[in-house]
């Protein structure tokens, strides 16, 4: 396999969720090398880690996000793809640390105070990370102070706030107001089942998305 074929195969593994050789999923790829082995092979072959990231991994996760938006795949397939992506990213870690491979930017994400639901937030975090962003996940039940502490450390970051309960939308509104009061220049994107475009405008956030791919599109547009 030449490097082009290797990257194409790696991209396929991420798109369809083939984590490593031992992984039973997808059945059609049973016994074949997965994202883990192929990334190692690409690096051994001397493929530039930037090419691995840009030409194989990000493109594959982009396809996954699009298929999810179009309801061609569902949450499980997306999570398996994200796992394959993570297996590949493990090999790229040293290059991120050395600065040879750069992320598109930083994205702070958390579920707002009063809400413990993290499924949607986790999906967004995985897809955004797969799109080449560094994700700082603050977890659930996050208050304004914790968001602002993270912004203090990462002033260039974009911030994502998630809420699942209609009754915690008020909490989202308060947190957005507090962050914007102190950091008017920080971009805030909101999402979650009860959140709408109209609500985003009402509370003074900058972006809204009803799915992970929309969040990626918003973030990518900021650095385009």
């Amino acid at each position, binding site marked *: 396999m030449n490097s082009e074929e290797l990257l194409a195969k790696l991209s396929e593994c991420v798109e369809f969720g083939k984590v490593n050789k031992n992984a039973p999923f997808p059945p059609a790829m049973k016994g074949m090398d997965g994202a883990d082995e192929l990334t190692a092979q690409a690096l051994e072959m001397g493929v530039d880690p930037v090419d691995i990231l840009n030409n194989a991994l990000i493109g594959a996760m982009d396809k996954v996000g699009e298929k999810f938006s179009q309801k061609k795949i*569902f949450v499980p397939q997306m*999570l398996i793809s994200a796992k394959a992506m993570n297996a590949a990213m493990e090999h790229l870690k040293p290059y991120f640390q050395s600065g040879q491979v750069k992320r598109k930017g930083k994205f702070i994400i958390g579920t707002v105070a009063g809400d413990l639901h993290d*499924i949607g937030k986790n999906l967004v975090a995985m897809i955004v990370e797969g799109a080449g962003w560094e994700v700082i996940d603050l977890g659930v039940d996050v208050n304004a102070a914790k968001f602002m502490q993270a912004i203090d450390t990462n002033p260039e970051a974009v911030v994502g706030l998630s809420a699942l309960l209609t009754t915690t939308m008020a909490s989202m509104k308060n947190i957005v107001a507090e962050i914007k009061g102190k950091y008017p220049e920080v971009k805030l994107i909101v999402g979650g089942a009860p959140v709408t475009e109209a609500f985003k405008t009402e509370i003074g956030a900058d972006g809204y998305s009803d799915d992970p791919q929309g969040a990626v599109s918003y973030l990518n547009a900021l650095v385009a």
Partner: protein
Amino acid sequence: MTDKTVNSDVNQWFAHNQGLVDILPEKVVVEPYRILKGMGMQPADADDYLLDLISNEMEACKKKLMPEAAFNVHFSHQFSPGKYHIKLDEITFKTSKIVYSFLKKSTYLVLFSCTCGPAIENYSRELMKEGNSLEGLIVDLIGSEMAEWITEEVHLFIEKAMEQFGWGVSNRYSPGYCNWPVSEQHKLFALLGENNCGIKLTPTSLMLPIKSVSGMLGIGPGLKRLAYKCNICDDKNCIMRGK
């Protein structure tokens, strides 16, 4: 039987039965389609790999399930129509239009708490931490469904008991849903007293263990459980809509 006699019989039933409810872990049932639904899927969308995964995690969760459920009745209450307030003993719940409308005809109000215990959510967290997000999500959804199953069991237990007195039960409602602020949890747990199943509240009124349900339901003659009337609720974005 006079109304007074019935009330006295109901009071006696609660005197003997309120408190902990026996829930056997092996009896807890979660249908796989509910887990698929939680992931936005229909049964036809699932392959054998996913169904096997759900089945395996279901078995693992059953072993980790430590169900607890309890309820208590409150005979003294006062409804304030314009404000949707319900005063129980000395505590005033600021409910919502929809919660109030379904509870206002209750003769008595019952508070309940139910939990799966901490082991299932800890297991989910471990799986996520290890990078097994799909397995972690499935376990999380199984935990939620198990908590709902336990709550339904308590609801049915009270409903069946009330039938013998010619009484019925209302729907059940929880702070955080149907526009009833989640901050009201603290009042609910103050009145649950020792019937709290060991559930602790965070300063933001969330329950720990997470896989817990608490709430209120009404009992009385003429009451019955109805479909959750999302069409009359003004919260068009509620995630429970049409559930």
